[in-house]
């Protein structure tokens, strides 16, 4: 094994854990600085997110959003594309969900509406990713720039639609009418007897997210398309040599990525809010980048990272409730630190670990 290679358990286990520990140590210092006990803070955070049914429910609800946006970023990663437009794609995905729900909710049960809502979410999210994809494939306009621009366009477009077009007649709130039962996904409480998630809105979308993770694994590692995506992402020249069309790979990958991001709206709109409203994405799209990085672009890692971020969201809310000194802003600081260490500083510990493992392995290899 050449230098720079690490055992899989180090790559996929130890490094994320080290990053996380570093993030929490720095966070602990911050908590200490404002005069609170870091251990107490950790206790509340863990208890708030995992200590009781409702807490777990909220953690899983947030995690559902992160799974979708994390998968979206990961799929694009495999093709060497950096889709940071998950925010806008999820927002526009909400349109697809709302249209399906508003059209059907009076007439049919939820399980008839659901496939349409799901398709609507995926199609709208994919459509929003299509334009940047096309520009990248045909014109070389970098997707990082275009997808982030499209986030702003999405926000403005949704503002316009919700204020002027889709608003409930006579209402002052920029949101649609509330969906009837035919436009609501069942909460896990409703169909999993014996589990009590309290008022947490965790719903069927969690199951859909897990299925999506499985589907992403299959597509990326077990299909010809996934093979082409990975070949293109790892070595574009070799991909061209192999007869793989860069245009096709870029466009198709971005469509899948956008579709996954769009599906996040299922959880928020059809699963929890039951109406289309402004700014329901609130950063889930961006945090998806950190989730994908931390999960090393692998569905299993993404599910785990999504649960971690769900815990931070939910536990953080409890923490700021219990400890008024630790404000909502402090929680965002802690989340930011986790993103910083897991994402931006992902490779900080790597060189040292590589040295350690190459060094410790050399004698063994010589013996063998």
């Amino acid at each position, binding site marked *: 094994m050449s230098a720079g290679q690490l055992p899989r358990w180090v790559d996929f286990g130890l490094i994320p854990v080290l990053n996380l520990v570093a993030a929490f140590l720095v966070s602990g210092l911050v908590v200490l600085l404002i005069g609170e006990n870091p251990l107490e803070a950790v206790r509340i955070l863990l208890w708030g997110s995992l200590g009781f049914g409702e807490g777990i429910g909220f953690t899983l609800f947030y995690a559902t959003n992160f799974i979708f946006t994390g998968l979206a970023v990961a799929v694009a990663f495999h093709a060497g594309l950096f889709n940071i437009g998950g925010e806008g794609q999820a927002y526009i995905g909400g349109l697809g969900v709302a249209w399906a729900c508003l059209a059907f909710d009076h007439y049919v049960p939820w399980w008839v509406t659901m496939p349409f809502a799901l398709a609507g979410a995926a199609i709208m999210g994919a459509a929003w990713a299509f334009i940047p994809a096309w520009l990248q494939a045909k014109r070389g306009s970098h997707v990082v720039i275009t997808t982030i621009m499209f986030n702003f366009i999405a926000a403005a477009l949704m503002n316009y639609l919700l204020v002027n077009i889709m608003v409930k007649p006579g209402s002052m709130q920029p949101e649609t009418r509330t969906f009837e039962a035919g436009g609501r996904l069942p909460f896990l409480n409703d169909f999993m007897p014996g589990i009590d998630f309290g008022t947490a809105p965790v719903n069927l979308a969690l199951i859909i997210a897990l299925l999506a993770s499985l589907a992403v694994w299959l597509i990326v590692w077990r*299909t010809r398309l996934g*093979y082409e995506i990975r070949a293109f992402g790892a070595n574009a020249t070799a991909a061209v040599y192999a007869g793989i069309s860069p245009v096709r790979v870029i466009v198709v990958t971005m469509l899948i990525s956008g579709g996954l991001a769009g599906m996040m709206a299922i959880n928020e709109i059809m699963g929890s809010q039951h109406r289309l409203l402004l700014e329901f994405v609130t950063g889930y799209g961006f945090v998806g980048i950190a989730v994908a990085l931390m999960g090393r672009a692998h569905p299993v890692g993404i599910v785990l990272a999504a649960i971690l971020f769900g815990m931070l969201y939910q536990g953080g809310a409890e923490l700021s409730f219990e400890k008024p000194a630790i404000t909502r802003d402090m929680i965002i600081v802690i989340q930011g630190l986790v993103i910083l260490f897991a994402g931006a500083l992902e490779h900080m510990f790597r060189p040292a670990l590589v040295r350690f493992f190459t060094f410790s392995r050399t004698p063994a290899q010589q013996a063998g």
Partner: protein
Amino acid sequence: MSDTPAIELRNISKSFGPVHANRDIDLVVRKGSIHGIVGENGAGKSTLMSILYGFYQADRGDILVDGRKVHIGDSKTAISLGIGMVHQHFMLVDNFTVLENVILGAEGGSLLAGGVSKARQELRHLEEGYGLKVDPDTLIEDLPVGLQQRVEILKALFRGAEILILDEPTGVLTPSEADHLFRILQVLKDEGKTVLLITHKLREIMAVTDTVSVMRRGEMVATRKTSETSMAELAELMVGRSVLLRVDKKPAKPKETVLDVSGLTVTDSRGVQVVKDVSFTVRAGEIVGIAGVSGNGQSELLETLAGIRRATAGTVTIDGETIDLGETPVDPAEMRGKSMGHVPEDRHRMGLVTGFQEYENAILGYHNDPVYSKGFLLDIAKIRDAARSEIEKYDIRPPDCLLKTANFSGGNQQKIVLAREIERDPTVLLVGQPTRGVDIGAIEFIHKRLIEMRDAGKGILLVSVELDEIRGLADRVLVMFDGRIVGERSPETDEGELGLLMAGVHGEDA
């Protein structure tokens, strides 16, 4: 002129990972001379010059400038020692004027005005002294390439360069611009400057240099007085007799034509014609070798036939079907579909995805073959079985199809590519540099496989810069120079004659 050499290199070695870019290089450059360094692409010339200019540090060895031992840690040090460099790709700011570019990094203070007027004067001196005429207030982007290069030279002289390194300076120039450059170099020499000229064009070496050193595979193989050598000798030294490999083969029994290329012309992204009106045929049961110093269009020819590069004109007839490449662009998948295999010249860049596991590379380019799919999904078990059988048949080591491809040695990686392409049993196989960076054992194995394939009645087009390989394997040898096929010879033709052809000296009957 004193006898102290301007530059002396002793035992310079530099490796990048397992690749020895420079190995024990000794070089003496006399003051006030034009010293040429020739070698093929990848022979280590540019690395050596980068060491001299402080871009890289040598792993071992000493550099002496004006007889003093120096440590050149960065280009700043090199400049202060009077070493200037004109890069192959210009280091100019396009939307700055000539003057602004010249003073860039040598502004002489935080306020520009003083430095600028001084520089303007200095430029005028240089202009008068060396005949380097450029309007100092023109924007770089408005200048033709030849003048841009002149600005690079001015930049170096402005910084007080006594030793000027030019890296492939004529690559981008027209012939008349090149002639002009050579006149400038003569003037510089007459003024007592030392010039180091890096190139792979022998004609230029013969035209302007006083001394010439030849590099091959990271080693300095010879230094000659230009007046006492010939292009043929230099060509031979560049390509090398290296290891003389005997390839056992029976005479070819060529049958019908399987590949017919006619009037093929290829223009690269810079708009330069790299393949010029090339026509030839390959018959079933023969190996046609294309010899030539690298960089004369062979790579582009191969890539165009494989469908990777677009041709501007020309037709290809493969297995009876004619395609007008100028009219209908083809893609690599299409060419594979016409039973054309391709072992690319650069396995790392093109032939393999090194981050993939071995079995994944075993189907690269053939992944859409329904054999490897089971419904919607890839049939992983089947792909691995196919990879395992190739591993066994081609003795690929270690025999582990789950290992990451980057962890195989060069020779074994090449076998992975060959196994993939040969086992598909194509009618025509394009092979580029099949044994570059491959150990002796693997070379023999690869040669044997290619001969077997020929004897099985396939047509093989072999591009190699190893003359021995071409002579050993090919049944007919085409020599390429400057994008054209300048002659066809039998592989028994002596090396001197082939060397001359490769150097662009046309024989009577070429």
